[in-house]
């Protein structure tokens, strides 16, 4: 994201030149940059489909409509909130280094600003949607959406302004320190993970998730094929997520895309090896989460490390995801899709790895300290604020669905429609059909 500024300044400079006198080469470059940014933004948008498939597949059939609806609407409401407030807080003039103060509800702006807002809106929606999977199967729909709006409108942009702000005047305090988070291992993913962690703490586990002795019970998802398809769609979308963060159609995209791909592959292998070595069953869900963990982890350093280190980063992320899931289970924190280990833990590791494996400046202790500071700052901001937010939502409108609603399934009690009407003979509640 550091390159955004240069790209943006180039763009504003061009805006002063009339088309007739513009240098054709630069104009073409600007057009290509825009095309690339919008294409990448569309790929990031497609990740929402991946999240919806993955999360609904990991939930029981009686809650799958609810999960998809949450994914769909947090994108819609989150996009509006980010345009209205979030973009200004994140990228507006930032004289204090703490948050942006201009460019709210962007209009009458430069073409480049619109492209960037489009691309960044997809990022904000991604940060918001991470919590939905973790909190699935027991969260009230309206209450969740209130949270998603606050995440996109405030929690994500404020931290984002510390790392990526501003595009106009001033600079974020972490950016000033040289914090490396190219496409958002911490800014987007860890933050989403910590918000999810706060959500599941406030909610508590699903009924019967742990037995009376505290031992965890598996509540299997209803469609593992859609989980796999969702994982692959996320993988595809990530090429836009990381390579699009150059914000320019330049030659660095090759390395970024390759690193992204290698880290994902290594993440799945890392998860597989961890399960094999610990003599656990080779679960599809863990394998796919391992791959996504690899993607999350390489997001910070994909532009600044060599492929070998991308592989190492991904491998370790796969291990982090499997161990992190077991840790959460031991703490009786019910994360339906494993969002906290995949996005929170793997994101934190990836941000550290970005500081460890900088090409030409490996293992620089100052850089490592800055990375640790950035990770801690992300947690210190997002977790308590999200805890407070979900706590207040719980006290006012109610975050957790009632036990009767949980029994009936949220598809029935929140939406009054079911996902698979043809197979209703096995369902307790038949919806309106």
């Amino acid at each position: 994201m550091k390159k955004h500024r240069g790209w943006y300044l180039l763009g504003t400079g061009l805006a002063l030149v009339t088309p007739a006198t513009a240098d054709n080469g630069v104009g073409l470059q600007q057009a290509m940059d825009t095309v690339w940014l919008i294409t990448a933004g569309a790929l990031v948008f497609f990740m929402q489909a991946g999240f919806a498939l993955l999360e609904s597949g990991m939930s029981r059939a009686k809650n799958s409509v609810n999960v998809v609806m949450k994914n769909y609407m947090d994108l819609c409401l989150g996009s509006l909130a980010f345009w209205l407030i979030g973009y200004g807080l994140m990228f507006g003039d930032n004289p204090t280094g703490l948050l942006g103060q201009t460019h709210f509800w962007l209009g009458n702006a430069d073409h480049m600003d619109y492209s960037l807002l489009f691309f960044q809106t997809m990022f904000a929606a991604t940060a918001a949607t991470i919590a939905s999977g973790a909190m699935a199967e027991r969260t009230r729909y309206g209450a969740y959406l209130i949270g998603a709006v606050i995440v996109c409108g405030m929690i994500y942009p404020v931290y984002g302004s510390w790392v990526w702000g501003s595009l106009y005047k001033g600079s974020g305090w972490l950016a000033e320190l040289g914090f490396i988070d190219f496409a958002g291992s911490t800014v987007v993913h860890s933050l989403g993970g910590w918000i999810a962690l706060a959500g599941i703490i406030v909610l508590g586990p699903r009924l019967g998730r742990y037995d009376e002795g505290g031992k965890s019970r598996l509540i299997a998802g209803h469609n593992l094929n859609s989980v796999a398809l969702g994982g692959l769609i996320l993988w595809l979308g990530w090429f836009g997520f990381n390579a699009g963060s150059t914000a320019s159609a330049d030659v660095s995209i090759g390395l970024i895309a390759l690193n992204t791909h290698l880290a994902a592959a290594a993440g799945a292998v890392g998860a597989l090896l961890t399960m094999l070595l610990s003599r656990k069953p080779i679960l599809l869900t863990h394998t796919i989460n391992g791959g996504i963990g690899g993607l999350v982890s390489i997001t910070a350093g994909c532009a600044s490390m060599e492929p070998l280190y991308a592989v190492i980063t991904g491998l370790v992320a796969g291990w982090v995801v499997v161990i992190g899931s077991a840790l959460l289970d031991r703490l009786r924190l019910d994360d339906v899709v494993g969002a906290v280990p995949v996005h929170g833990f793997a994101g934190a590791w990836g941000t550290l790895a970005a500081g460890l494996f900088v090409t030409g400046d490996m293992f620089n202790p100052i850089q490592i300290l800055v990375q640790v500071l950035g990770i801690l700052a992300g947690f210190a901001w997002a977790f308590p604020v999200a805890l407070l937010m979900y706590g207040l939502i719980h006290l006012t409108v109610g975050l957790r669905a009632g036990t009767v609603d949980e029994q009936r399934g949220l598809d029935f009690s929140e939406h009054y429609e079911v996902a698979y009407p043809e197979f209703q003979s096995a369902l307790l509640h038949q919806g309106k059909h």
Partner: protein
Amino acid sequence: MRQNAALSASDDLELRKQAIMIGLSHFMSADECLTAVRHWEQHFSRAPRFALQAYVKELIQPDSPLWPYRKEMFLNITRTMTLPRQEIEARFATLFAAEIVPGDNTQAVQQSEAQPVFEQLYRVLMQKLETESYPSALALRKFLREKILQQEPFSMETQRLNNWLLGIKPELDGVLTLQQMRHIVHELWRGSCEYLGPVKTDRMFAEAIGKVEKKTRGEGVSPRVFL
């Protein structure tokens, strides 16, 4: 604040029935309100709050003189549902005291028809639980007794229910309201989730419902009404 919010799908059934009758009372006679609320209880009482719109649409057919008043009817009901409990109860008493004995003929699902189906469902569920895990079934019976009878003062009726829940007596020998039956089934589901896990519980409930549905076909009450 949550307690003051509008009545949700899981709130008190009797109160919601009263709110619907109050809402409809501007447009219908007491008898018609009663028929209408029976229809709601039979087909919409388990549905989410927003299904009320579908209910009103189903209640008033296009050839009815009330057809132009559907919107007012719907708004009346939803407004009444947002009132505090005491106010709903007071209004209901004023409007329907002469016509209706509370807790008696407002029951859409007649207790005399419902109770045998409920007892059968309970029996089948308990048999399934015992087959799955006998210690869990025992623990579950105690769990149920605690949850159902905790707040109740001692009486012969509660003693009979206690004996039936614990499996000491095979027959209930008493009368339960539909709400009480639903409460027992729901607590049984909750307890079963705790002892056997939610996946086994849902599967077991679906099988039991299917079995009882086959057995009681033609008796006018589906076991699904207790869910």
